[in-house]
């Protein structure tokens, strides 16, 4: 696993729900690229065009609330987003991210963030840097149990490698 993630911020507000991340009308597919083409469409119809590989979503409270559809983190990951940082995450969404290996960080940094800001996540130090805002934030530490799943590369790899 890399220790530094660098990318440009795509900033959203509070309670971004899984219905806007990937609306139900696209849920007859679980193909990652098809889902990515419609990611965030109901919030920002140009999201899939705007977003560049490596970009980082910076969000407020309760990111990913609503439905349990794993299609939501799959769509985000396949759009090229390298990590999601939020003040808080809705529980099922967070679980799904851990399970599929989309990097998520709990950190309250949205209030100073602007679209396009260069964000550096230093996982070893547990810090996030916003260069333009000249701010350094601490990331909420990840529980050991979760670290183990992530280090195996997701839940199912953990299951298989543990020898079922």
């Amino acid at each position, binding site marked *: 696993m890399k220790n530094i993630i660098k990318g440009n911020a795509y900033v959203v507000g509070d*309670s971004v*729900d899984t*219905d*806007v991340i990937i*609306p*139900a*009308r696209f*849920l*007859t*597919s*679980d193909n990652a690229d098809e889902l990515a083409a419609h990611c965030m469409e*109901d*919030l920002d119809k140009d999201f899939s065009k705007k977003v560049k590989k490596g970009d980082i979503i910076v969000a407020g*409270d*309760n990111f990913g*609330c*609503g*439905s*349990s*559809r*794993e*299609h939501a983190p799959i769509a985000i990951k396949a759009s090229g987003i390298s990590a999601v940082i939020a003040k*808080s995450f*809705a*529980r*099922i969404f967070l*679980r*799904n991210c851990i*399970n*599929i290996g989309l990097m998520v960080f709990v950190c309250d940094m949205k209030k100073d963030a602007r679209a396009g800001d260069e964000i550096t996540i230093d996982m070893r130090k547990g810090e996030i840097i916003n260069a333009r805002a000249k701010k350094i934030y601490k990331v909420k530490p990840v*529980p050991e*149990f979760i670290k183990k*799943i992530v280090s195996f590369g*997701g*839940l*199912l790899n953990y*299951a*298989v490698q543990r020898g*079922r």
Partner: protein
Amino acid sequence: MNYVENILSHASGRKSVSAGEYIEARCDTVLMNDVTGPLAVKEFLKRGKKIKNPGSVVIVCDHFTPNKDIKSAENVKFLRDFARKQKIRFFEIGNGGVEHVILPEKGIVKPGDVVIGADSHTCTYGALGAFSTGVGSTDVAFAMLMGKIWFMVPEVMEFVYSGKKGKFITGKDLILLTIGKIGVNGANYKAMKFAGTVISALSMDERFTMCNMAIEAGGKAGFVVPDKKTADYVKGRPGRKARNFADGPSAQTFKMDISAVKPLVASPHLPDKVGPAARLNKVKIDQAVIGSCTNGRISDFAQAAKIMKGRKISAGLRCIILPGSQEVYAEAMKKGYIETFLKAGCVIAPPTCGPCLGGHMGILAGGETAISTTNRNFVGRMGAVSSRVYLASPYTAAASAVRGRIISPEQL
């Protein structure tokens, strides 16, 4: 230990567990549907051949059924074939309905069970005193491989309701009141316990409604400690016996006197934007939806029928009735509710999720407004991005359908 900790210590084979601990627990029931199932099964098949505990796995196809297009038909076919091969329970249209209505009906969930489902409203079964929570497709694949699942033991947030329930006040109003008070992430990661004299007197159907919407406050689970009403509900249904667990103190307690509460509505676009229905009389509606895993049970239709009896829905409005299951549908026919709805000008859909998630059978056009007994009013939830959904009880939705504007049933 409290009720949740007792269930989870039993399911994880530990002497004791406490809030904040990570555990692996046995699952009595593992649920998936036609949206989350295909992904779970594909992930499972990459790594395994046979389900560890086939008796625990249940597939219900309800979101896009009767299938709305070729893709959804292919998904259901894929799940049906998988179910046959693995010899697991599969609910087809004609013997099923909406997952969270049929699992308790068929006796699949019992008090004291641990249930996971790749559907966020799996929290519904807490009404039976199960520890029941929504997860993702990968979790279901894991549970099929391993026969268990990881949890963080949640803290319990207790809500104690007292006072005299006003006319037309239902479980839906109580849960909207609660979500309005604590907000859409007010119970994030926590198990919401519903208690007090009001809950003791509440019907099982309305307890299902309340637990169903725990997730709308971010709750991991919602539950009512089993009592005589729970035992009566379970009696005579097939399946496992109930397991009894003791309760203990909760981390937080909120007390609410509900005597002055009037029928409530959640306005777009979050379930915590709650206020009295009577203050929304200016809102004109194009469609009313009565049904879903929140309010698609027999007493919900009894309430709606009481309002609609001898009345007609407002000209130019569409009212869609969605029985939650075949059993509910049959019962509603027998009791004459279906006839009441037909005479009032409603259309009766088959048991399906349909418009609840903007799937099919009642999608809103741009700029349209609906009042609905479902659980979510997010942007675009029932159709076009510019459409709007107001959440309410069956009484309030039916009264509003009659008037053509949002009203409190008291105003009819």
